């Protein structure tokens, strides 16, 4: 049976991880490569890097980080954050990432999904989507971009279907309402989207305890769940989370 994936997300700025508290005793504090290797050794199924670097050097720094991770971490990982051209996609994939994630750029020019999928295959192209509760939208959630700052006219469900049709091979679905609360994923949103599309859905935003992953895998029908602070701050290891899921009947990979 296909296992449910536990995915760790690392926010990277100027080549350093922005939430590196757990490893503060380590000489490599905040080094995304070091953190990636630690999570890999703990048995994480996949990694996601969001590059929030603003400097002019960003592409060079990003490629260097991706290359160093790929040399040491032999599991899939994806890279997102401001990717808006085929050339940037190509650089990231050739450096060793399995997938690239597009978010705001795909809302502004949806053709980037089709371009990426036809050049590199749908399996490489992840749609990152930020959704916010809004009763005026048909599915009850509105797509927002630019890290949640800019509302769009898109209904979250309609956009997910459209992105699949355009060639996205996976959707990372982030709830703006739940993000940072550590009170659990937006299970309703996850279920609406996951049941409507034929590609895997990764739930994101709100994870604080292993029970939250259990709930989003069962009630939310998620294929994978993204965690950040609950592992970065040292409260839980990837192994703790997977052990809990396994003991509650969720198929997960144990290493």
């Amino acid at each position, binding site marked *: 049976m*296909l*296992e449910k994936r536990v995915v760790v997300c690392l926010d990277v700025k100027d080549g350093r991880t922005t939430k590196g508290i757990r490893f503060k005793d380590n000489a490599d504090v905040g080094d995304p490569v070091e953190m990636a290797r630690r999570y890999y050794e703990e048995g994480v199924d996949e990694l996601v890097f969001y590059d929030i670097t603003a400097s002019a050097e960003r592409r060079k720094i990003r490629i260097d980080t991706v290359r160093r991770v*790929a040399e040491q971490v*032999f*599991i*899939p990982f994806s890279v997102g954050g401001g990717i808006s051209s085929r050339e940037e996609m190509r650089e990231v994939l050739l450096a060793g990432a399995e997938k690239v994630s597009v978010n705001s750029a795909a809302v502004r020019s949806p053709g980037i999904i089709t371009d990426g999928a036809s050049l590199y295959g749908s*399996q490489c192209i992840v749609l990152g989507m930020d959704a916010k509760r809004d009763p005026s939208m048909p599915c009850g959630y509105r797509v927002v971009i630019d890290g949640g700052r800019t509302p769009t006219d898109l209904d979250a469900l309609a956009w997910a279907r459209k992105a699949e049709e355009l060639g996205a091979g*996976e959707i990372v679905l982030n709830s703006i309402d739940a993000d940072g609360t550590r009170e659990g994923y937006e299970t309703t949103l996850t279920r609406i989207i996951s049941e409507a599309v034929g*590609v895997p859905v990764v739930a994101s935003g709100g994870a604080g305890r292993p029970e939250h992953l259990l709930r989003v895998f069962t009630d939310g029908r998620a294929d994978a769940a993204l965690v950040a602070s609950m592992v970065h701050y040292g409260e839980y290891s990837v192994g703790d989370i997977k052990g809990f899921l396994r003991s509650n009947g969720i198929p997960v990979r144990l290493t």
Partner: protein
Amino acid sequence: MSKNTIVVVDYGAGNLSSVQNVLRHFGADFIVTSRPEDVGRGSALIFPGDGEAAASMGELRRTGLDEALRAFHASGKKFLGICIGCQVIFSHSDERDTSCLGILPGDVRRFPRMPGLKVPHMGWNAVDFRVRHPVFEGLPQGSSFYFIHSYYPVPRVPAHAAAVTEYGETFVSAVADRNLVAVQFHPEKSGLVGLRLISNFLAWDGCWENGGGAVDA
């Protein structure tokens, strides 16, 4: 090129950097090539890739790599196919009705369209080995490997099925015949078990006969 060089075949099907990273990790002597004349000079061959059968076969024919791959296999030297490299070694793929290399008899089929079964099959899934094989040495029964594919091989010779996996139905996730091993999953992205499989391949002498004995579950 030394006599122990591994040839990694590059035919434009996806990204070879992961395979190269693993070979570097083991300090293996390898080249990446798209030239048919280089292929035969290796002592072992890795035929990786993800992508699409028709485009892959088109490129293999255009470059003459199709003949080079058949000749390499016929020479008896060890051959590892990965993902699309586990599909186009068969006679035919349903993906755009594509005639393939025919190194092993059989077809490549798509997962059925059924409710709740997401295609592509993406993520970690258990592999049940059906044969004892040096390339699978030390891998626990039911080890999880990383998959990303919509099609899978259906060997015409049942004895070629070396491992199976469940996804909607039971499908063949690895095949083996004499000097050839091919896996539908990605060992280069499957953590420690994947590294073990590749190091086993590097150490393998390339000889294997299916003794017919099944592996205990």
